[in-house]
């Protein structure tokens, strides 16, 4: 502990003190987006990152940004690590991001209490805190287009349809294979409530994050218990392993439904054996949409992106596109609501609350038939959009069901209750003071 160290410390403090400074230039809109192209969750993280990045590159290349303002888009690598996500949040904040997309439930939870103070809206697309669907309690947090609770209710609606009605579920056994983390446990209250009402048995098969790639004992248990249906809440390396083990243990793939996170790359190694595997989702796959073709033509062929050409339009890539559309439409809305060109986080929050992407708008965006219209409001930050089934036909995903709406009369009370308990357990949680804009 001498002068030398002090000098070193001072130099270090000076060096690191310098790099929080650079602010975004005034003629662009800055977005800092979490991504994870490293670590055990990169299998899901890479296509999402590609989708978001390519869509903003398309907007910049084709339209010169949004409303004539360029989008400065930057990724921050988190490796799905909460601690690195916190670093990314701080960096995003210091550089003036207009939106924060955590892409991990843990990171979302860490950021939610800060959102109204830092004036950065949080967009956690169909993940994160389900209660944040309540705009009254969480004016700064958005989780469109559905929650995990909605997802579980649509899963039950779907299997009830297949079995011939909710009354036919009596005595059946439904298994939930889930990541043993808050994310994976999320649908349990909904499934339990339905199990009590309709008289089916719910069996839980938790999989620890460290055991994601070793699920053989879980599937042995499933073979013994012979559940009638399996619902999977997986992410990252858990998905391909789960599908492979299901095929290996001979579970009927037709009765295996997953929440919306597995992509083609997760199923492809199992190939024809996975035929019949189902994913619950809210948007279509494929390269036939004009927007996807424009990305191929204007972004990938021009060398603006590293995405392999044939990955464009795949399932998880499409999720990236969907999120980027929501962000860009929110920015567009914000420009309309405020009359400003260069909008900030506060404006984008208002843009998100007035978000209304109609079927015509989806068509204008070159994504006709990609998904259902999305409308948010000050009270509803979720939209509770319908979900449909994508089925694996051996080589690709095919849509095999009509869109089914969530059972919101069962889910809404849960959301309200959870929002209330969040506000009470976080003593001093502010009540909403943000005014509500009229949709434009």
């Amino acid at each position, binding site marked *: 502990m001498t002068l030398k160290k002090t000098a070193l410390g001072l130099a270090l403090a000076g060096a*690191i003190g310098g*790099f929080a400074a650079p602010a975004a230039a005034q003629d662009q809109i800055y977005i800092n987006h979490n991504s994870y192209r490293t670590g055990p969750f990169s299998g899901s993280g890479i296509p999402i990152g590609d989708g978001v990045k390519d869509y903003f590159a398309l907007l910049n290349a084709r339209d010169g940004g949004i409303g004539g303002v360029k989008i400065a888009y930057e990724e921050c690598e988190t490796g799905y690590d909460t601690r690195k996500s916190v670093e990314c949040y701080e960096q995003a904040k210091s550089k003036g991001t207009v939106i924060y997309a955590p892409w991990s439930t843990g990171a979302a939870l860490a950021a939610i209490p800060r959102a109204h103070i830092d004036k950065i809206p949080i967009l956690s697309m169909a993940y994160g805190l389900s209660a944040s669907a309540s705009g009254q309690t969480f004016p700064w947090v958005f989780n469109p287009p559905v929650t995990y609770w909605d997802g579980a209710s649509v899963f039950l609606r779907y299997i009830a349809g297949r079995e011939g009605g909710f009354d036919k579920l009596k005595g059946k056994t439904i298994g939930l294979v889930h990541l043993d983390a808050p994310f994976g446990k999320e649908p349990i209250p909904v499934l339990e409530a339905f199990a009590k009402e309709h008289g089916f048995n719910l069996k839980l098969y938790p999989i620890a994050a460290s055991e994601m790639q070793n699920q053989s004992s879980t599937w042995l248990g499933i073979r013994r218990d012979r559940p009638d249906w399996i619902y999977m809440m997986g992410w990252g390396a858990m998905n391909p392993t789960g599908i492979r083990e299901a095929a290996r243990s001979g579970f009927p793939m037709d009765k295996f439904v997953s929440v919306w996170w597995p992509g083609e790359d997760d199923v492809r190694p199992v190939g024809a054996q996975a035929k019949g595997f189902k994913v619950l989702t809210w948007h279509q796959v494929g390269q036939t949409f004009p927007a996807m073709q424009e990305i191929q033509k204007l972004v990938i062929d021009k060398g603006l992106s590293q995405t392999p050409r044939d990955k464009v339009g795949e399932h998880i890539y499409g999720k990236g596109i969907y999120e980027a559309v929501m962000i860009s439409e929110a920015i567009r809305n914000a420009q309309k609501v405020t009359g400003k060109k260069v909008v900030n986080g506060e404006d984008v929050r208002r843009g998100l609350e007035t978000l209304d992407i109609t079927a015509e708008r989806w068509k204008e965006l070159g994504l006709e038939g990609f998904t259902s219209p999305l409308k948010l409001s000050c009270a509803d930050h979720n939209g509770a959009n319908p979900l449909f089934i994508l089925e694996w036909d051996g080589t690709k995903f095919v849509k095999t069901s009509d869109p089914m709406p969530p059972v919101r009369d069962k889910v809404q009370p849960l959301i309200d209750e959870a929002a209330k308990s969040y506000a009470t357990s976080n003593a*001093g949680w502010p009540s909403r003071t943000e005014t509500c804009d009229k949709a434009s």
Partner: protein
Amino acid sequence: MFYRDAGQYKSSYAADRAVFPLREDRIGLAVILLVAFVAIPLFAGDFVIKTVMMPFLVFSLAAIGLNILTGYTGLISLGTAGFMGVGAYACYKLTTYFPGVNIIVWILASGFFSAAVGVLFGLPSLRIKGFYLAVATLAAQFFLQWCFIRIPWLYNYNTSGAIEVPTRTLFGVPITGATAAIEVRYLILLSAVVLMTWLASNLVHGRFGRMWMAVRDMDIAAELMGIRLLHTKLLAFAVSSFYAGVAGALLVFIWLGGAEAGDVFAIRQSFLILFMIIIGGLGSLVGSFMGAAFISALPTILKFGLPAMGIPIAGATAEHLNFMVIGALIIFFLIVEPHGLARLWQIAKQKLRIWPFPY
């Protein structure tokens, strides 16, 4: 030339036995404290405080805890993250049941809970040593981590399974929760670390420290000299876990402000803290700080510092580069000085004392 003991006379036994016998050392320490307490909150931005300084301080404290056990007493533990978790959850439950009591009291008190758990898992240390003890503490890590995920009572039946930090105040100023200013939180953390480092320094330089080191160097000889092994080893476990527990409570309540704990207190963290003390220097307090800076702060500085200095690497590339650079540096330092950065620092000081005449 600048750093020498010539002319500094000691006129009392206390002065002769001081931890920092040289005036230059004392001045250096004062300057470091001044920088940490005044300059950083004033001049460093939110980003630096939140992502560089606060993790550095939290992990320094945890590393000191593990160093007491591994470096001073010679007992290897792989359960540090688990003990940190015990502290965090204990603090959460305590402040839930007794919201009126100041949170700082609970943060410090939560250390006693993890000390108790540490003593329990330290019991086998009387019979088993070395790698076998490492495996026994590994069991503690797995068991505790299992508890954090599977016992909903611990996280107040929260649907997301996370600790949600409520707002708590000290003299009317919020110090935890979302509304607390980052500078206030930093100062609380820094004060806790300084206080506990001072305490640890007194412990290891005093009777207990000597007992621990005697056990470390040769436990049979220590026993023959009248040191009771069970008490000494369990005391080391208790003190070590106390430090880990307080570090864990500070991590969740002061630094992160809420966490999905299954993720933060994972086995990976235990290993990182072990690496901190191995690279920093076993049996050295300053080494704990150096190791924490190396393992916890350097990756962040590299990741965000390089682009800020104009070296255009971003996202995943920075992350990959980081792995390579840190890995290479670890190998480099272990080859150059297997006894850690603290030993390197000591050599540098010795050289500095006689510089510029090396005889």
